[in-house]
């Protein structure tokens, strides 16, 4: 990056199954107002707006950023709309980061949202792919074979997914914004029905309404703000083709390439010991073990053992998803930015009841498409 960039404001909505109290602009505005308030800024201080969301079909509005210009405060400002499937929230935040890094913008507002109650998420997440009969089974139907392949490859025992789900829900209990906060037991998860074997009902993310906004700023602008910023050490987005014979869908090359890029730039050689907490995109419980390996926190086949030993729990060696993560709240378009924003909140020391004590370096991660799109950043508490 040409110059340092920091997160100076974070605002998110209450996430729930149906935010019937607000319209789409109302939901977006709730996050925008909170982020600006958090940064001690007003709309007039913002140089550009970058917005992201997942497929327009989720709400039934084509290019909804155009009718959201007022809610975003983007009138007569530069605006960019990003869409990179499930990773979009994260790649949107990175797009905002690039705006500031270019030297052309000092303060950029970035927003991601999804109001899934406006449409039918199962339908919108069942795309017809080339050369493939329609599955009509949602994202879970698409990703269940990936999880089965992981289990087969590594010999992971069946309780690993359920353990992950219990830990995520336990964490969400400490996050006032999370959608699902009721505690669940291992038995609850094991006894919940399979939706798409091996994925059970309680190992599945909810369908949520929610939004998040961040303000990213140059070093000079960040130092003028009222709060401790989160310094972005590195941020990259990578993608890979789908129809490549032999492509490793369980541990995709694009995920490894993206992780290497953000680690190299941030000077991280030993992620397991140098990263204090990580917010990673786990829409179905088994993906936590899969990403621990893909992100280089451990060797291949070792990810499930970290979960079995509880080393990823809140208060343990590497707390994963202290916010509860995607398993607790999933407004799809916003979920990636929630990961990056939660990582930033940890560095700002303002994650409240789910603050990881003494955390100085955090990873935010999201993926999308058929595990093809990856977007990540490393944030730190010090410049």
């Amino acid at each position, binding site marked *: *990056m*040409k110059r340092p960039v920091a997160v100076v404001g974070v605002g998110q909505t209450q996430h729930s199954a149906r935010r019937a109290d607000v*319209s*789409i602009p109302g939901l977006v505005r709730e996050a925008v107002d909170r982020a600006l308030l958090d940064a001690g800024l007003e709309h007039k201080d913002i140089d550009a*707006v970058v917005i992201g969301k*997942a*497929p*327009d*079909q*989720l*709400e*039934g*509005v*084509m*290019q909804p*950023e*155009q*009718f959201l*210009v*007022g809610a975003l405060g*983007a*009138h*007569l*400002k*530069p*605006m*960019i*709309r*990003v*869409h*990179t*499937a499930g990773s979009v929230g994260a790649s949107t935040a990175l*797009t905002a980061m*690039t*705006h500031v*890094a*270019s*030297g*052309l913008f000092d303060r950029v507002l970035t927003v991601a949202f999804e109001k899934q109650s406006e449409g039918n998420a199962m339908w919108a*997440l069942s*795309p*017809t*792919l*080339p050369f493939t009969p329609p599955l009509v089974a949602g994202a879970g139907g698409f990703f269940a074979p990936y999880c089965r392949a992981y289990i087969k490859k590594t010999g992971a025992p069946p309780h690993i997914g359920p353990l992950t789900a219990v830990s995520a829900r336990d964490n969400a209990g400490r996050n006032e914004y999370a959608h699902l906060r009721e505690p669940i037991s291992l038995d609850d998860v094991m006894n919940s029905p399979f939706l798409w074997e091996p994925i059970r009902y309680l190992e599945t993310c909810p369908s949520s309404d929610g939004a998040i906004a961040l303000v990213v700023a140059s070093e000079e602008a960040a130092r003028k703000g009222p709060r401790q910023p989160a310094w972005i050490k590195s941020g*990259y*987005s*990578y*993608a*890979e*083709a*789908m129809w*490549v014979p032999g492509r490793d869908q369980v541990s995709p*090359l*694009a995920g490894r*390439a*993206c992780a290497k890029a953000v680690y190299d730039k941030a000077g991280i050689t030993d992620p397991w010991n140098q990263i204090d907490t990580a917010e990673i995109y786990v829409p179905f419980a088994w993906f936590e073990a899969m990403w621990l390996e893909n992100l280089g926190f451990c060797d291949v086949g070792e990810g499930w053992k970290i979960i079995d030993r509880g080393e990823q729990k809140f208060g343990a060696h590497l707390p994963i998803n202290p916010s509860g993560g995607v398993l607790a709240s999933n407004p799809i378009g916003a979920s990636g930015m929630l990961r990056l924003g939660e990582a930033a909140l940890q560095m700002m020391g303002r994650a409240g009841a789910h603050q990881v004590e003494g955390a100085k370096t955090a990873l935010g991660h999201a993926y999308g*498409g*058929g595990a*093809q*799109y990856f977007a990540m950043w490393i944030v730190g508490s010090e410049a």
Partner: protein
Amino acid sequence: MNLRNIAVVGFAQAPIVACDEHRTAQEMLYPQVRRALADCRVERSDIDYQVAGSSDYIDGRPFGFVAALDVMGAWPPVQDLHLEMDAAFAAYYAWLRMQAGDCDTAIVCGYGKVSEGDPPRLLNLRLDPYYQAPIGLDGVSTAALQASAYMKRNAVSDGDLATIAANNRAAGARNSDAQLREAVGADQLAKTPWAVAPLRQGYLPPRGESAVCLVLAAEGKAERMCARPAWIQGTDQRAELQSLGARDLARSHGTQLATERALAMAGIARAADLDVIEVSAANPAEELILRNAMDLQSGIGLEPASGPAINPSGGPICGHPLMMTGLIRLGEAFRQIAGCAGEHQVSEARSAIAHATSGHCLQQNLVMVLGAERRWS
């Protein structure tokens, strides 16, 4: 401010057709990617970044753009982004990404097949779902409201619109990538039936589809990839409120602001000093509104006696593939400066503006100033 000199160094476009019956959007795009890279004498592995612009609604399915990863060459994995916007905005962002560092080359792609869907219905869905969409407005009816507002304010007649449309049609006849390649006189166009008054069918483009790939490169590499690169000297973009009642439809405030900022960045006093202007005007009234916003004429004179050539490609009136129209303007600006515009080459063109738009009634506007010379030392 000292920025990096970045140029458009390659551009390949599928000729615009009503319907390419035998190819998917991705199959239409693949040859353009290969041709653009071959023209630049580079391999895909020489490209640092890729970004695309397309619409899931035009693709008729969610996540439609994912299939383009394969043809853009995302193996082994590449740095990538996708915008749900006209691909010209993707080019703008690629330029920003290159300004931010550690990225010297990029490809920018646009694609989408409107023949597989129902564009009026889609463009209705682009309006706010509470107040405007339920009325049943679509792309043509909103454009007609804007044309009325402009014509009333500026005493422009139906005949004036016909003249503008005829000028574009005459230019389009010289562009082998245009969809409408027959020159038609103003008199004849003025006899065509109303699409939505005051816009006649003869003033509007037919449905068309294409696929486009543009290559950007930074100084040091650009010169090796292209004999006559088109250097980006300034750029800016501005969004406006959507509600048709909330803005003055007779003018494009956003284009005016973006033009002023882009020209200031380029160190150029007036758009009228440039050689070529390619604007995303999908009807004659939009062209007049954009000309005014760029201060290209004092009155409403239809054919400036001197000054820049406006839409020498025939413009969107002769071919308007949604989500690519803006990127094609940028490609046309490149072709003119690189001297490879063929029959529609403007002689000795050394500078140009490319304009792109998003939303209804010129809601969001992007302006890019290009020239044969590097801007920054």
